[in-house]
C-alpha cells in the first residue's frame, strides 16, 4: 500500500537519512526503534512532507512521486490519506476538543457539519473522552490531550496513522491510557507507523519492527525476530540498553 525507497535528508551538512526503504501493507503495525538522532522522527515526517526529503520515491496506492519534487497537489493528497500524532500533541489551542477533531473533517475534507460532528464525537468516545467535548487543550491533562490528538487523527479515517513518539512527553502514570487507545486501534486493524521508545508496547502490538541508527535501517523484521534474536551487533547493544530484562528475554 505504502512504499518508500531510498529516502534521504540532510540538514545543513548533517545527513540525517542516508537512504531508507520501507514497505507497509494494509493493517501493518510498523514500529520504528532507534537511539535519538538516528533519524526515525525525520523519516516519519518525510512521509507526510512535514519535512521535505532531498531524495527518494514514494508509491502510495495510486500516488507515485519523487519526494523531492512532489507537487502541492500530491502533498495535499498524501496528507489527506495520512494522519499524524505529534510528540507534543500540537492540539489547536484555540479550539475545543470537539473542534480540534472536526477541523480536519469540515475544513480540510469538506465533510458536512452534521456528519463531521457525529464522526468527531465517535472518535472522542473511542478514546474515552466523551466527557470532555467542550474542553480547551489548556484544560486537559497531557494524556487527555494526546488522546484528543489520536481522536483527531482517526476521525479523518486515514489509510495510515503516523505516530511520532506519542508518549514521550507524558508523565509515566499517563502513558498507559494513551498506549491502551493505540492498542485498541491496532486490534481494530488500523495501519500504523509508530516511532516509540515503549519497548513492551512495541513487542506487544508490532508485526514489523525497524531498527534505525545513523540514518539507515540497521535491521528489520518481525517483532519476535528483532526482540528475541537480533542479528546485528548495534541492535543487540541498543536493546540491551533500553530493555532492563533483555538478557532474560533471550
Amino acid at each position: 500500500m505504502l512504499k518508500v525507497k531510498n529516502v534521504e535528508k540532510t540538514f545543513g551538512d548533517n545527513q540525517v537519512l542516508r537512504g531508507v526503504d520501507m514497505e507497509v501493507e494494509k493493517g501493518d503495525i510498523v514500529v520504528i526503534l532507534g537511539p535519538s538522532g538516528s533519524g526515525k522522527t525525520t523519516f516519519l515526517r518525510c512521509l507526510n512532507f512535514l519535512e521535505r526529503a532531498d531524495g527518494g520515491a514514494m508509491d502510495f496506492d495510486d500516488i507515485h512521486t519523487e519526494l523531492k519534487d512532489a507537487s502541492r497537489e500530491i502533498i495535499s493528497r498524501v496528507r489527506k490519506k495520512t494522519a499524524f500524532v505529534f510528540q507534543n500533541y500540537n492540539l489547536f489551542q484555540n479550539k475545543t476538543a470537539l473542534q480540534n477533531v472536526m477541523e480536519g473533517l469540515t475544513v480540510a475534507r469538506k465533510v458536512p457539519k452534521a456528519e463531521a460532528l457525529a464522526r468527531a464525537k465517535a472518535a472522542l468516545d473511542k478514546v474515552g473522552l466523551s466527557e470532555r467535548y467542550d474542553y480547551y487543550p489548556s484544560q486537559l491533562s497531557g494524556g487527555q490531550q494526546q488522546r484528543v490528538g489520536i481522536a483527531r487523527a482517526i476521525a479523518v479515517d486515514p489509510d495510515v496513522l503516523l505516530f511520532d513518539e506519542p508518549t514521550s512527553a507524558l508523565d509515566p502514570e499517563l502513558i498507559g491510557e494513551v498506549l491502551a487507545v493505540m492498542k485498541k486501534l491496532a486490534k481494530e486493524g488500523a495501519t500504523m507507523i509508530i516511532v516509540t521508545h515503549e519497548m513492551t508496547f512495541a513487542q506487544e502490538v508490532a508485526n514489523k519492527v525497524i531498527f534505525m541508527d545513523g540514518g539507515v535501517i540497521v535491521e528489520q523484521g518481525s517483532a519476535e525476530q528483532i526482540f528475541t534474536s537480533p542479528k546485528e551487533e548495534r541492535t543487540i547493544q541498543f536493546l540491551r540498553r533500553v530493555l532492563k530484562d533483555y538478557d532474560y528475554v533471550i
Partner: protein
Amino acid sequence: MQLNTQFMWETFLAVLKGVPVTLAIVAVTLLVSAPAGFLMAVKKAGEGRIGRRIITVYVSLIRGTPVVLQILFLYSLLPTALNYLIKEVMGLSYNIFNVNPIFYAYVVFILNTTAVLAEVFRSALSTVSKGQMEAALAIGMSKPQAYVRIILPQALVAALPNICNATVNLLKSTSLAFMMTVRDITAIAKIEASFGYNYLEAYLVIFVVYIILCSAVQGAFHLTEQGVAAYKKPVAP
C-alpha cells in the same frame, strides 16, 4: 483669567462634527493596514528573500521618520505627482486638486500604520508554536486555511494589546491631518479659536474629546481581548 464657557460649549458642539472625520481616518486605516500588516508579517516569516528585504526597508523607512515629515512630504509629492500622471501621462482633464484631502490622510496613515502593525503581527506570530502550523498541515488544511483558522486567532491574543496601542497612537496622530487641510477635531478647534483668540479654551475642549475617544478605544479593545483569549481560561466548562 476667565474661561469663556459659552465659547467652550459652542466649540464642543462644533468639534463633534470632526469626530466622524477622525474616526473615519482611524477606521479606514485599520481596515487596510491590519490585513496588509498581517500579510507582511507572514511574508517576512516566509522564505522569499526579496520580499523580506523589501518589507524590512519599508518598515524601517516608515518607522525611522517622523509622521509630520511623512505628511509634509507626501502632501507635497502626491498631488503634484498625481496631477502629472493624470494630465500628462493619461491625458485626462480631471483636476486632482479638487480631491478631498482626507484621501491623502488615508494614504499617509495607512502607510504608517501598516508598518507598525507588520511589526506587531511579526512578534505575535512568533508566539504561536510551530507545531500548530504542522498539525494543521498534517490534518490536510492548506496554509491559508491554517493561518485564518488556527494561527491568526492565537496570534491575535498576543497582538491585541499592541494593536490597541497602535490604534490609540493612530487616533492621536490623526490630529496632524489638519496639516493637509482635513477638517478633523483639531482643525475645527483651531478654526473656532482663531476668530476670537480663544485658543486655550478650544484646546481644553478637544483635550477632553480626545481623552474620551481614546478611552473608548481602549475599552473596546479590552472587551475584545477577553473574547479572543477565552480559550486560555484555566477553568473547565
